[in-house]
């Protein structure tokens, strides 16, 4: 074990009083990445589950890989499609990689530097949380997003969205979505409209997303087919277009038990219920879009499977999760159909419910407290 010996040799330098004690958290992050520590339990139960947060976080990244791969291909595909050029598979993928790798470099470098600096200042261990956030951020951006904007958004999301609250596990809203929302409200021309979704789009090509079409009064006939939306050969944010890729990843998270099925099921239920109500009213073209189309359009599935289920920002009680998920699905579709300003409601619905999740939990827990206090009162009465 040459590597282990080397780590043990340099370890004292990073400990208190060592030459590089300033970089203790950084060293520890790399050491524990390589080796699960030899620490044994010294309080409470003498055994521990083999699972840890690293594995949980890493599995979310694994689940996102199909979306990443399809997204890479789709960037290239949409680009060549808009120019009407024929391209081989490798040309498409090559172009896609050329566009997506810079997004990832910016996301991880900016985010991780901030994370490591905060960890060193706080004398804490570096958390794995940003590996997920950093992987998600490029997937929910338009392919054409300028890199400097991405960098600003990442810095904003990590510092204001996470670190000021105390780091991983303490944040109120989903940091990846906050990055997107920050750009959405600060630079709307780069985040909405028909011209941002395809990298270096030919001007003559429409490039409208299905949701953009609806916003502009388009009818259901003008939308891509369900099959196209399912496979994902449509313009949109990098990772959100292919429902096949999303479902593969989602299935992995559901089987491994990392995503909570309650949120997923109730979010779909909320979307379907509101969708059916709008279909019933049918006052305009947007309302007439069949409810099941909504499940395949925009970021609904991506948001439901990968963002609404974020355990930190979701409701924490089981009952609360049903309510939280239902409201996300319902409000997302409500915003899509009833709000003339925003084509996509998923981001706003999740952020809104992130803020309200503690209130939902509070109400659920309050019911339990009330029950307990009633029992106390009854016991006191019978004692007298």
């Amino acid at each position, binding site marked *: 074990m040459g590597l*282990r010996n080397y780590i043990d040799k340099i370890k004292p330098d990073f400990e208190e009083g060592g030459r590089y004690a300033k970089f203790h958290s950084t060293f520890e992050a790399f050491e524990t990445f390589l080796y699960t520590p030899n620490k044994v339990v010294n309080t*409470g139960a*003498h055994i521990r589950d083999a699972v840890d947060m*690293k594995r949980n976080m890493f599995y979310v990244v694994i689940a996102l890989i199909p979306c990443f791969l399809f997204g890479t291909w789709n960037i290239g595909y949409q680009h060549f499609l808009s120019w009407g050029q024929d391209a081989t598979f490798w040309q498409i993928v090559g172009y896609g990689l050329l566009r997506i790798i810079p997004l990832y470099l910016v996301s991880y470098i900016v985010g991780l530097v901030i994370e490591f600096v905060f960890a060193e200042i706080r004398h804490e*261990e570096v958390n794995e949380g940003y590996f997920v956030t950093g992987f998600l951020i490029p997937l929910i951006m338009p392919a054409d997003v300028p890199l400097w904007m991405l960098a600003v958004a990442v810095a904003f999301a990590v510092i204001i969205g996470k670190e000021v609250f105390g780091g991983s596990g303490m944040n109120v809203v989903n940091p990846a979505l906050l990055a997107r929302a920050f750009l959405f409200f600060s630079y709307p021309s780069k985040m909405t409209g028909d011209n941002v979704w395809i990298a270096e789009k030919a001007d003559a090509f429409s490039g409208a997303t299905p949701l953009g079409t609806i916003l502009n009064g388009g009818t259901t006939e003008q939308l891509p087919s369900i099959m196209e939306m399912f496979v994902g050969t449509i313009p949109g944010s990098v990772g959100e277009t292919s429902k096949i890729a999303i479902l593969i990843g989602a299935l992995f998270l559901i089987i491994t038990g990392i995503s909570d099925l309650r949120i997923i099921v109730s979010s779909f239920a909320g979307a379907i219920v509101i969708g059916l109500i709008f279909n019933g009213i049918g006052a305009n073209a947007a309302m007439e879009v069949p409810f099941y189309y909504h499940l395949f359009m925009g970021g609904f599935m991506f948001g439901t499977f990968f963002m609404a289920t974020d355990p930190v920002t979701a409701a924490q009680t089981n009952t609360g999760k049903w309510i939280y998920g239902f409201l996300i699905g319902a409000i997302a579709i409500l915003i899509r159909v009833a709000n003339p300003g925003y084509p996509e409601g998923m981001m706003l619905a999740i952020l809104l419910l992130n803020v309200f999740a503690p209130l939902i939990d509070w109400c659920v827990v309050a019911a*339990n407290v009330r029950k307990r206090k009633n029992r106390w009162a009854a*016991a006191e009465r019978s004692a007298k």
Partner: protein
Amino acid sequence: MLLVSKFAVCFRATYMIEYQLNFKKKIMSTVIKIKKGLDIHLAGEAKKETEVFEVRRCAIKPSDFIGVIPKLHVAEGDAVQAGSVLFHDKSRENILFTSPISGTVKAVVRGEKRAVMQVIVEADGRDEAIDFGKADISTIKRDEVIDKMLHSGVWTMLRQRPYSIIANPNDKPKCIVVSMFSSAPLAPSTGYIIENQVEAFNAGVEILSKLTDGKLYLNLKASCKRCHDVIAKITKPENVVVTDFEGPHPVGNVGTQINALSPINKGEVVWYCGPQEVITIGKLFLTGRYDSSRIIALTGSEANDPHYYKVNIGADIEALAAGGVNFRAISGDVLTGKDITGNYFLGFYDTQITVIPEGNEYRLFGWLAPNFKRFTSTNTMISSLFKKKTFVIDTNRNGDVRPLIMTGKFEKVFPFDIYPMQLLKACIIKDIEQMEELGIYEVDAEDFALCEVIDPSKTAIQQIIRDGLELVRKEMN
């Protein structure tokens, strides 16, 4: 022809009686099913053979009792008998702690600030015991019972919820609960232990029933035939209620059972003890002597020839537990026991020793490995496919401490009408009012043991709950 029909009638009659008996039995004891929880299948179960272990030394450790500050009655070199007072509790002077065996006080081990860590008694092999006097169990009064138990030190076997401290003899408990089984990994079989001590157990039950105006609950494992046989043999005073329990751990925890039978309200107190404590109490009144013998199970993958041993409370069991390399000896089960490696004295309330490998090794990419042989309650590894298999589990923490991120996991192993995460957080921020509202009186640290085991953020949950309980206890008194 006549004969045949007579036979048929006779057969039918027998069948009917049997049917009715079964029906009656079902009414007599109700079955409570606990759904949430987790059985951890650990390697190293004890064989059902009992060997008498020659106890050379015993130690009484004040740290086995919550909130006890000892005031010594003996000095090194003093001769003691079984039942001689070693120390009392400074805050409650009538609570006496007595020697489990006859011999000499070998050492009083002190720790930081000269706090007494343990009082060691070396056996003289004479088996002498103080005579506290036999009693007529059917006529003895509550006050006399309490008096005799306090003087002999047997009182310390009765504990109370909330807080898990030794019961206060001045309290009137709402009820007394005896959990007749443990559901923790490799727990000893109560039926096997008590089946030859029915008389003493019977006496103990009668004595305990006098201590409360409420019910005395005897809670059995539904599938334990030996236990049911014992219960069928004893005379049951009027306030005894027999209840069957089934389900995964923590179904055997007294906290789970109290919560299912009658949850503790603010201001209420429930007393509890284990089956072997009932036997000790019974023997005190039958013979007038404090008999500290215990049948314990030696268990665990690193234990040499795991089976049952007859020892005394606080016995030095180094010869049983030590011997391997890189192991951890635990007095109690792996979920709630105490690490006694290096200081091998059995804990006061423990009836099990578990020896498991110490996991102080690095594992390359341990968080990524497919893990064929490591235990997990999740579905994230290959080993998840073999949940029924027995596992060798070491003491490695399997990761670093992280903030509490995952939700909905504790709820799966926590069979209380309580929000575990919320209560845990109330304990962390030391908010007593919230802790009360969220149900701190209904739980103990051990009820959170499974949450601690499965928690991917590796939080020291039992310690946090214990600290929370202690905070409430000090604030309320």
